[in-house]
């Protein structure tokens, strides 16, 4: 009998811990959203976060997108050749980048670059008592640290996704026209004709959701760090891992919803 209890406990404990973490994260997200619509607003910090999350992420997003678009064109061309469908390269590159690869790759790049940096910065502030100092200086850490970062994720990541989509399609265009023999004008026409407004809208919605997840998890794990350098390291690692997994899970859910409509 005791072995049954042991087995059930070994299943129940991690499930309970996981649910408790999910509950804490949900409460944290609710608090972040509620502080987002209540004064005071720290505009300087919001602008700084917009620069950090958006502008300084452009190189990594651009490089990721252009190489992915190029590789996608080559894959579709060689795969399509198996059933004489090489001509669909512009359409598949466009829809693949806009609907799926653009948002997901930008989301993962933001998780790697922004989530890690937010988690490490806030966790360091926590272990050096800077968060306590903020409180004693009558400044709410949620408003001063979390709101600017999450807001910039919500605003800037959709823009980065839009830019990533365009650069990815450009990567496919360069490979298609320079290496695979496509006519430049026809390639562009096929791309533009094939993409629908709802593809672009869904891409931007995914971008906003992934930006929210990436920045929120950076703040959450930073604020809940353990002690010392090891705590900061663990908080950063956990933030990136959980952001990446949640982004991929959210992508599946959003794809199911958006394309079922």
């Amino acid at each position, binding site marked *: 009998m005791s072995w049954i209890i042991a087995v059930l406990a070994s299943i129940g404990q991690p499930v309970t811990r996981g649910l408790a973490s999910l509950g804490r994260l949900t409460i944290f997200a609710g608090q972040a959203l509620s502080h987002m619509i209540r004064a*005071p607003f720290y505009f300087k910090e919001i602008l700084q976060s917009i620069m950090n999350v958006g502008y300084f992420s452009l190189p990594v997003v651009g490089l990721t997108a252009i190489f992915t678009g190029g590789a996608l064109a080559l894959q579709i061309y060689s795969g399509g050749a198996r059933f004489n469908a090489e001509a669909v390269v512009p359409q598949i590159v466009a829809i693949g980048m806009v609907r799926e690869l653009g948002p997901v790759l930008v989301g993962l790049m933001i998780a790697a670059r922004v989530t890690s940096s937010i988690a490490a910065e806030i966790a360091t*502030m926590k272990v050096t*008592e*800077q968060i306590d*100092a903020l409180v*004693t*200086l*009558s400044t709410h850490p949620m408003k001063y640290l979390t709101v600017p970062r999450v807001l910039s994720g919500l605003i800037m990541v959709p823009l980065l996704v839009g830019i990533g989509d365009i650069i990815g399609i450009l990567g496919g265009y360069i490979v298609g026209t320079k290496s695979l023999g496509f006519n430049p004008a026809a390639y562009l026409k096929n791309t533009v004709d094939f993409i629908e407004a709802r593809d672009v809208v869904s891409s931007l919605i995914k971008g906003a959701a992934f930006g929210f997840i990436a920045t929120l998890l950076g703040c959450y794990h930073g604020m809940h760090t353990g002690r010392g350098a090891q705590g900061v390291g663990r908080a950063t690692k956990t933030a990136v891992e959980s952001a990446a997994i949640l982004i991929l899970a959210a992508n599946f859910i959003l794809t199911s919803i958006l394309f079922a409509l």
Partner: protein
Amino acid sequence: MIELADVHKAFGSNKVLRGVNLTIPKGTSLVVIGGSGTGKSICLKSILGLVTPDSGTITLDGEDVTKADRDSFLARFGMLFQGGALFDSLPVWQNVAFRLLRGSLKRPKDEARAIAIEKLRRVGLKSEVADLFPAELSGGMQKRVGLARAIAAEPEIIFFDEPTTGLDPIMSGVINELIREIVVEMGATAMTITHDMTSVRAIADNVAMLHDGVIQWTGPVAQMDNSGDPYLDQFIRGSADGPIESVR
């Protein structure tokens, strides 16, 4: 006046505070001493609301601190943290004037900068330091900047958490003198946590010794050496022999 009545706080099975009773009369300087890990910082953070006690009450001028309006309550306090807790991303003057650049005490930027430079001067730092970043300062200078930040908004109550830890004896003496001068000059109520008996003698009007989660002894600093309390005597002597276990 700050009053703690039967304050308890535990972290899991570790009972840190087991019924702390303490009074800090207005305009006096209380120093809390005690070994590492005895809950001195938790006691201080409980008053500020950074840690929530499990039971007991903490009042400021008769008002329960948990029910007070948070902003106006915190506006009455200044705090010097053990490691300075300066914001790395801001230059020194913005650290000092942090409270004056936002919130209910907001002033025009030029005025806030002028006040910050004046407070830096008050703690013995030149105006050239104002535009440096905290990482460019020595430990002693960081402590002084932290002190300037604590007094920038001229609070009624100032807390000092281990103000001389990590400093050489001369710099410790300078910081102790500064704290005493500033507290007297401002007529502020002060609470200091320290292990440093030189600090105690320089800063305190009254002393409280925290041991085993309760206030073991409290009284005027002048009576400290003749208290007759074996715990306090051992702590003052810094001896391994006595009722306080030397290995914790």
